[in-house]
């Protein structure tokens, strides 16, 4: 199912921990996490509420500093002490695409502008941004809705626009937080197929946090997070290409 899979992981996390508070009030949200996600791979991250899924997503998304451990994104070591907020934002802008549960499109921009704004922030000219945004929307089959405001898009359309936005700057890593939670089975399947297509055609690593059982069969590999610890899940759909054995 995966297209191009490189030897070195795009997300490489080793012995990563994150704790909040100190002393008796200390909470270990993540404990000694090891995770590698490769180009072209679509990985699912499951776990009950409070297991640390969001914390892990925030750490990988460069929103939250880990307490200890090593993290590399697209071959670049992050949180080695030399990173400022400004640099982390730039890293997010250039390398990471985010997809949210409720699409989080900016309500005052139409579909095209919601995609183009990311490109303009990254420094593209208005015309180039519009052109690329239109291409992406057409690629995701919502080109005909480019002038539509988010409030007038259906859930599936809005999520596809959100995916287009996440892809705008050719990110190597896509982080999706419950991207299908607000969609019915059919639309959820369409969104996951799109993510798989993006991973395969653009060589991106896709990490999806989900509770949605109906999309489990769309993952190349699934991890289960409980009490801050990560476990690889066994199952027929978890190791389709032998990656887990490789690492």
């Amino acid at each position, binding site marked *: 199912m995966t297209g191009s899979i490189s030897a070195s992981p795009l997300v490489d996390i080793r012995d990563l921990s994150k704790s909040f508070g100190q002393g008796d009030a200390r909470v270990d949200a993540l404990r000694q996490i090891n995770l590698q996600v490769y180009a072209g791979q679509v990985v699912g991250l499951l776990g009950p509420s409070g297991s640390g899924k969001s914390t892990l997503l925030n750490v990988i998304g460069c929103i939250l500093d880990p307490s200890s451990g090593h993290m590399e994104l697209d071959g670049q070591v992050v949180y080695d002490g030399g990173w400022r907020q400004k640099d982390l934002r730039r890293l997010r802008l250039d390398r990471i695409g*985010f997809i949210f549960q409720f699409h989080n499109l900016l309500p005052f921009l139409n579909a095209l502008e919601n995609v183009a704004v990311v490109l303009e922030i990254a420094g593209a000219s208005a015309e180039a941004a519009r052109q690329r945004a239109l291409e992406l929307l057409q690629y995701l089959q919502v080109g005909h809705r480019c002038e539509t405001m988010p409030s007038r898009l259906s859930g599936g359309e809005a999520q596809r626009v959100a995916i287009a936005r996440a892809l705008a700057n050719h990110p190597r890593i896509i982080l999706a937080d419950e991207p299908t939670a607000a969609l019915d089975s059919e639309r959820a399947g369409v969104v996951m197929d799109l993510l798989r297509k993006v991973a395969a055609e653009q060589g991106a690593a896709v990490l999806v946090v989900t509770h949605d059982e109906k999309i489990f069969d769309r993952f190349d590999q699934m991890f289960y997070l409980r009490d801050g610890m990560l476990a690889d899940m066994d199952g027929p759909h978890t190791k389709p290409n032998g990656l887990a054995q490789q690492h």
Partner: protein
Amino acid sequence: MNLALRDIRHSLGRFVLTCLGLSLLLGLVLSMIGIYRGLVEEALSLSRTPRADLWVVEAGKRGPFAESSRIPGDTREVIASLSRVAAAGSLTYQSVEALHSGRKLRLYVVGYEPGRPGGPENVFAGHIMTRSHYEMLADAKSGLVLGEQVRLGRNVFTVVGLTRNQVSSGGDPVVYLTLQDAQRLQFELEPPVARREAERGAPPANTDVVNAVVARVAPGIAPGQVVEAVGRWKHLTALSQSAQEDVLTKSVVDKSRRQIGLFTVILLAVSAVIISLILYTMTMDKVREIATLKLIGAPDSTIIGLIIQEAIAMAVIGFSLGTLLINLAKDHFPRRVILLPEDGLALALVVLLLCVLASGMGVRLALKIEPAVALGG
């Protein structure tokens, strides 16, 4: 891509309503400044009408507006005879309240000698008084029209000319009578009172009294020289025109002026608080959008730009609407509202500065928003 413009366009109705509210507030501030200016201008207009260089009043008094002053009617001849004086005129001032056409009419009566300094030089309708009795010039604010007859005291006067912007420091419209008519109105006793005074053996009431004499000095002469010369006479006091204006603004209307000034400052402070709250609320409403922008990597400048540009747009639209509103309404105020371009410009700059400073609260909030908020965490 201008995010502020698109955000405004998206919630246009709400933004316009906010701007409208702000415009009413700024219109109020502008009207207070206009009322302040009008108060000073009205107070000065009466003293400026005679275009005098100096005012001669009763000894030890500060002119006909701040204190009562009574000097003999022949004082004008004495002043006019001074070599450095080019022209002089006698004046009387009094407030009257008359019942006219079933309504109460409060007027400020000025008696002057047509052809001598003291009265208006022209009228916008009708003509200057040509007869020595029973004619009057009235300010348009009195509501009187040409040819209308008004009873003042024991006589009836016909309006022959209309003036503009001639009101007393209290806001009453001014009417001009000839000096003799005004003297009789002010100093002549009612017949029963006169009879009683005669029976007491008192001399007949002297109506040849004026409240002030105004004079214009000869070309090349400094008014101060004449003021000094008149000051040597113990029964009279002379004030220069600038001293008279000082008395009016710093004594007669001082409290009103300061009250309005203070109220304007308070109103500006209230505006600042309201603008801050509006901008803060506008930012609060966009917490999720700002978090999303931060998450996707937008720099702080993009987010600060969004808030400040909306603040500036609000200031510009609010101020423009407020100015328009007050310009349309100013003529309906009971007293003069004077809107000077420099006051408008100063207020525009103050409002712009206020909005930018007030947006600081919103900016502070925006910078504190964590990108994780966009993920729902």
